[in-house]
């Protein structure tokens, strides 16, 4: 579904992404791992159009999307969450998700119809599936950090994406919240058959859930394969696991 080929992006002299390769098949749960500053977030920002690559290809269903702006890429079926809790902080939880559902159904330009009565069912269903339904009238800014991150995923789900990209979904979470969030991600992948690409720090979390793992170091891809093969790889062990 998604193929990234020899992607490069530099900021002035710093090569943030320097030869990244990635492939995501339909229905897969794929993880990108790598130490801090390996270029994971930059790679995601390149895929979803927040940044434009210097060279290289990003193919979504065989179409090159590397030059498109974020809102067009979203329309093509990629939705994402951000590493920092990136929500609409003055709107209620319900309206946070509703905004993306409205956008998905191309209703964002309706001028004189009360939004309160539109796409209510769809929005509630998403809130229920992530477990935020009982907080739907809360202002997003008043949520706890963990809930804000979950809300982010809910916003992305509002776009009914073919591919869901999550940038460190458990960053800053307590161990319990991490477990709940990973369970949620696994449920989305297994029950709803969503294709999910995420990056993560916590090694155990990644090896426990992902079907395919891509390892990045200093902007380059070392390997992408099944978890066991990745674990055996000596280069990965040296670079990331501390050479056991």
């Amino acid at each position, binding site marked *: 579904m998604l193929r990234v080929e020899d992607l490069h992006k530099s900021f002035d002299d710093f090569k943030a992404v320097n030869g990244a390769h990635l492939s995501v098949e339909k229905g897969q749960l794929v993880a990108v791992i790598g130490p801090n500053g390996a270029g994971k977030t930059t790679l995601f920002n390149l895929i*979803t159009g*927040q940044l434009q690559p210097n060279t290289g290809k990003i193919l979504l269903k065989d179409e090159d999307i590397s030059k498109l*702006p*974020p*809102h067009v890429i*979203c*329309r093509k079926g990629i*939705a*994402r969450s*951000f590493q920092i809790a*990136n*929500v*609409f*902080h*003055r*709107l209620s939880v319900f*309206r*946070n998700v*509703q*905004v*993306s559902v*409205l*956008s*998905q159904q191309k*209703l*964002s*330009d*309706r*001028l*004189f*119809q*009360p*939004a*309160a009565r*539109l796409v209510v069912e769809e929005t509630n269903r998403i809130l229920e599936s992530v477990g935020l339904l009982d907080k739907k*009238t809360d202002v997003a800014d008043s949520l706890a950090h963990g809930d804000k991150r979950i809300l982010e995923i809910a*916003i*992305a789900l*509002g*776009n009914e994406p073919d591919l869901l990209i999550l940038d460190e979904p458990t960053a800053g979470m307590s161990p319990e919240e991490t477990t709940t969030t990973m369970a949620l991600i696994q449920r989305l992948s297994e029950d709803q058959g969503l294709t999910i690409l995420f990056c993560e720090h916590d090694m155990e979390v990644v090896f426990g859930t992902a079907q395919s793992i891509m390892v990045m170091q200093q902007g380059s891809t070392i390997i992408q394969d099944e978890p066991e093969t990745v674990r055996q790889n000596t280069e990965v062990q040296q670079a990331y696991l501390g050479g056991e």
Partner: protein
Amino acid sequence: MFSEMIRQKSFGVSAAIFVVLLIAPSFLPRYYIYFLAVIFVTALLAMSLNLCVGHGMLFQFHHGVFYGVGAYTAGLLLAKTSLPWWIAFIAGPLAAAFAGLLIGIFCIRLNRLYFGMLQISLGSLIWAVAFRWYALTGGDDGIHGIPMPDFISSTTGSYYFVLIVLGICLVLMYLILKSPFGSTLQATRDNPERCAAVGINVRRHQLKTIVIATFFGGVAGVLFVVVEGSIFPDLLFWVLSLEIMIMCLLGGWFTFAGPILGAAIIVSLRTFIGTYTEYWTLILGVILILLIFFIPEGIMGYNYRQLFRSRTQYATESQTE
């Protein structure tokens, strides 16, 4: 449930105010009727600006230009052509919206403060045209004694006309803000980056907002001509733009009706203190300083927060019961 109560209460209050305003001409002296009409016009202008500033976080620094374009278009058509009055009244807002579109196309490429700075520059060009083109606009004298149709030529007639148009515009703005368009606009305000990531063309959405806001600004311009019967270049001067910006901030820029309150306060200050001293802006300055330090979200924003606090308390209390 509680928010439903608030909504019903505020609906009741606005209905009561509207009824009082409807019968006001029967007991208020003529000067105060005129004074109220001036507040209505200014309130509509501030409300239109707040669509951009409060709900879209677009720093529309020179909104007065569109007020002026609306007023000049209507005023010139009434004074210099024999076209029927209603064509002039419709042409005003349309011209303002067109100007909004033209200036907006350039400004929207820039972010926040730069957006505002470019708008001041482009807007000042339009002011310069109105100020200098004596043959058409009367230059800095403007045009006075613009002929009005009979039904709005009296103070009471123009009062009712302005009140009704204001009422219609407020209802329209309320509907727009509660619509998917308004929801999405508030989302672009809170987080443009996230908005683009859910598939919204943020710049285009903002441009549409500017066109809508400048249209209503043009309506306010037409109403100004109705009330004053004259046009002059000060309508397009940046000082006025600053004043209406202050009205939004003072009244509460994240609330719906805040700018009306802000407009009422500033117009009252200008009218009543302005008769004693030309330094009334001194008092405005002090108010601004107090505002920035103590209630940065404006008077109604502050009130709303108080309400909101009691509401969360109410929620926790009912949970523990």
